[in-house]
């Protein structure tokens, strides 16, 4: 039957099975490839992958740094700073647009247009305006996620029922208190949802920029090692990126569930 529920145990078994199938398929393809060409590095064997991981976590002779630490620090700091400024800007603009109609009319059209421009296509603009250091990456992520996030915040504010606002006024709320104590608190869990959706695009913008102009970072390393066909390094990097994205999403989901259980129920 459509949407017939299954037990948690069955869901877990199916989830594990899908991952094992994927790994089994990879082992099979890698084995075939190495039968044809024993020196192949495009689909490395598990032992080659282990060597790649060793290379990533060991101290590099030239730079005297561990790649994973060096690249991780650079990429994560850029990503967090970019997301921080993007979310901050989006909250301010979204609240202004949702609460005050002049701002809605003034900011709505440019944000709708900017939301359609892929930041990776405007990479050159960011180079020109912000150089090629951390500022450029931060600006790119911030401006990349801001239009969509601001629109999400704006829509969330508009969804707060008028009655809720009238009620707050009758309880003595000032305009600022209404925005801060009532509206902002009511939209916070929706903001978390919106940020969760923007983690993926933010990582795409960052990795793309690092591939083009970076001298350190995940994007830079992946580009460099891809050119050398060193996939035993590239694949672990991709796995780390996937694990990081998953961990961040899961953390935000848990925060939402813990602090906003009223919303989790409402969403259901």
């Amino acid at each position, binding site marked *: 039957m459509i949407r017939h529920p299954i037990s948690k145990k069955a869901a877990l078994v199916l989830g594990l099975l899908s991952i094992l199938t994927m790994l089994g398929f990879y082992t099979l393809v890698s084995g075939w490839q190495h039968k044809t060409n024993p020196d192949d590095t495009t689909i490395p064997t598990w032992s080659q992958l282990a060597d790649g991981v060793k290379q990533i976590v060991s101290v590099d002779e030239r730079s005297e740094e561990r790649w994973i630490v060096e690249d991780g620090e650079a990429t994560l700091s850029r990503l967090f700073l970019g997301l921080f400024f993007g979310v901050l800007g989006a909250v301010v603009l979204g609240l202004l647009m949702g609460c005050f109609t002049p701002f809605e009319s003034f900011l709505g059209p440019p944000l709708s247009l900017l939301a359609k421009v892929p930041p990776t296509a405007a990479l050159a603009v960011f180079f020109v305006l912000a150089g090629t250091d951390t500022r450029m990456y931060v600006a790119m992520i911030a401006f990349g996620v801001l239009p969509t996030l601001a629109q999400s915040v704006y829509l969330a504010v508009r969804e707060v*029922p*008028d*009655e809720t606002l009238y009620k707050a006024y*009758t309880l*003595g*709320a*000032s305009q600022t208190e209404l925005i801060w104590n009532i509206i902002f608190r009511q939209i916070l869990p929706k903001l978390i949802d919106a940020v969760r959706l923007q983690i993926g695009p933010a990582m795409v913008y960052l990795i793309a920029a690092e591939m083009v102009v970076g001298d350190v970072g995940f994007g830079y390393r992946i580009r460099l090692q891809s050119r050398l066909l060193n996939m035993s390094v590239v694949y672990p990097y991709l796995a780390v990126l996937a694990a990081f994205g998953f961990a961040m999403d899961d953390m935000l989901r848990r925060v939402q569930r813990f602090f906003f259980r009223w919303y989790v129920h409402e969403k259901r």
Partner: protein
Amino acid sequence: MKNDKETAVPVTEDIVLECRNINHRFGDKQVLYNIDLKIIRGEIVALVGASGCGKSTLLRAIVGTHPPTEGEVVVKHSKGGPEHTVRRPGRDRGIVYQQYTLFPFLTARENVAVGLMLDQTSIPFRLFRYPAWRALRKKHLAEADELLESLKLGNALNQYPHEMSGGMRQRVGIAQALVMKPAILLLDEPFGALDEATREELQKMLLTLYAKNTEARKNNQPPPYTILIVTHELNEAIYVGDRVVALSQHWDHAGTGLARHPGATVVYDRMMPVYLPDQTPDFGDFKTKKDVLRNVAFEGRFITDRNEHVTFWQEVGAGEGWAKNR
């Protein structure tokens, strides 16, 4: 059982809320015409009328969210105190809606305490005088707990609105408004979405408030609760209201020399029997009153003069009903 032997009655000059010649238009369409309404402190006034007759428009004008196109609404918080014209929602008028009454992100006690917080403190106070704010917060929560317990919600203090039943939510909503000690409590079809049993339970809760008014008057204190309840349920209006006001579009406008229909106006304003929570209503009397109300306000039959059933102030003047011992 008509309880017209209540002791003290509202001092009829102590007007809490007054609608002065309210007219309201939406574009070319006039919705309300010449509404004059004075509500005495301590009354529970039920406002009835058919769907679309302008009840909600009048209520919005009173709340202050949609001021009337002509006329004014005036509120006087205390007897002899200054009066002010309503221009926006304010803390002197509590409101309970049918839906969205509570803030979903606050528990029952926080929902009740939030008004005290907003009214008595500011954002800088809460940020920069945190220890003082924490102490005050404790006091607010204790006050909220006390009020909720008096409304039999002691076991739901830490529940979120989504964890409560519809009846509990509305009771918390009433507590949220009452904690502010508003000059008047406005109820916009508050029990409309509830089942019969819960509805009756909440109606009795309103009568408990009325009983507290009676008690206050006995002690020569101003009655603490003045309520305007908008409802389309006639039984409810007669049961909980000590006065019923009906709006209707069915009235003889041509007889007053108006060529075009000018919208709904007050066609019924009468005193009602007062019941205490433990008293059984006189259902025979209910039926008679309901029939008149239905004819006048809902079907527009037998209307010759719109003031024919607007006799509340004459009844008060003649010392009828609860005004006997005035």
